[in-house]
């Protein structure tokens, strides 16, 4: 089972590397959207500091939506998804592998970039650390929830927009507590409770999303 997980991750990471332009554009999207706000709002440090958590988190959410169509649709079109579904292992393991790979390729670079972008908003160093922590816990949950939406809308026309409509509402709790953690940290309060809740959401998503996504895939592939 672990071997399968490793093979799927290796496969998707390799494919992402071959198509790195797509991955990079998601990352650039994140950088540009976050950077637009200081330019648009002006150099008012107090205002920037207040909006920073929300801006970074919303941009992270949108960037992760953008990359969702890569999770299953390419494999669906060239028939490799069928082959993956016929892997003699539980489908939820294969799905989990794909989600982990998706996070490694899109979520992890986002986490690494976020503190640099946070500097533009004059976010204090302590809060930058909270920002990273909240993204480390939150972005995998976004990948997990997003994969479920991507599986449900597989093969539908206009699936991209539909995924966003389906998945964004489900991501609201993650957004609230993710941005909340950073906000608390900026105002000097403890971010612990927010981070704990984010962790709880991640565990919940980790438990149910692979299984639900596998079921959704089976339905979409019929």
């Amino acid at each position, binding site marked *: 089972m672990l071997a399968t997980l490793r093979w*799927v991750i290796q496969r998707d990471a*390799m494919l992402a590397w071959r198509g790195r332009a797509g991955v990079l554009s998601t990352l650039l999207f994140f950088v540009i959207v976050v950077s637009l706000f200081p330019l648009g709002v002006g150099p008012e440090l107090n205002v920037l500091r207040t909006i920073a958590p929300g801006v970074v988190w919303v941009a992270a959410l949108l960037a992760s939506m953008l990359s969702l169509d890569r999770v299953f649709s390419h494999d669906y079109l*060239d028939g*490799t998804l*069928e082959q993956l*579904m016929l*892997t003699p292992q539980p489908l939820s393991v294969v799905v989990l592998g794909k989600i982990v790979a998706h996070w490694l390729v899109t979520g992890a670079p986002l986490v690494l970039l976020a503190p640099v972008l946070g500097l533009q908003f004059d976010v204090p160093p302590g809060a930058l650390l909270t920002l990273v922590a909240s993204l480390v816990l939150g972005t995998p949950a976004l990948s997990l929830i997003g994969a479920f939406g991507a599986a449900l809308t597989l093969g539908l026309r206009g699936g991209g927009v539909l995924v966003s409509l389906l998945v964004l509402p489900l991501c609201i709790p993650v957004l609230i507590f993710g941005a909340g953690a950073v906000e608390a940290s900026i105002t000097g309060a403890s971010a612990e409770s927010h981070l704990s809740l984010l962790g709880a959401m991640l565990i919940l998503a980790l438990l149910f999303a692979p299984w639900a996504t596998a079921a959704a895939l089976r339905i979409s592939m019929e």
Partner: protein
Amino acid sequence: MSPRLEAHALECVRGGRTLFQNLSFALEAGELLEVTGPNGSGKTSLLRMLCGLLAPAAGHILWQGKKISSLKEEYLKELAYLGHAGGVKAELSAAENLRLHCGLADGRRPRDEQIGAALARMGLDGNEARPAKTLSQGQQRRLALARLLVSERALWVLDEPLTALDSTGVRLIRSVIEEHLKAGGLAVLTTHQPLEVSAGRVGQIRLVPI
């Protein structure tokens, strides 16, 4: 126990239309089943049912006397499927495609010689390192068929294996399938032209629109 595939009273409904019903057959070691029929008669649907990708509207499929829906992974260990879309990753090289398939299907890292031998058998030697997108349609089809050679499966389910193949390719597939049947394997395939294999026993099903 020699392998045995049975279908009992299968019914297929797609988009509200019944494509076939009450379809039963049995397939034993060394037997080939050719499914023919006009476009839209449900050939691909039947094959997808045999793989468990599509649930039959009625009836059931048995492998060694047990339902495939309850065997799940145990059944998938015996099955190799070639779909309409070949399942070849265009960004990866021919060898990488096979290596990843082996890793996923059997959970092991295949030996390079084995990959090389399979590609050579399919007439793809010299193309190991080329990205699959630079291969022609027929070569990509051959690459998809090379998967059958690297993972040893008892049951082959092939959807239009001859598409895009030249006459050498067709002869190649014929001999590969003959070997598989001689070794006690089973095969189900859809085709528009009879394959005329000279080994094993050949059964035929012709699907006609209701």
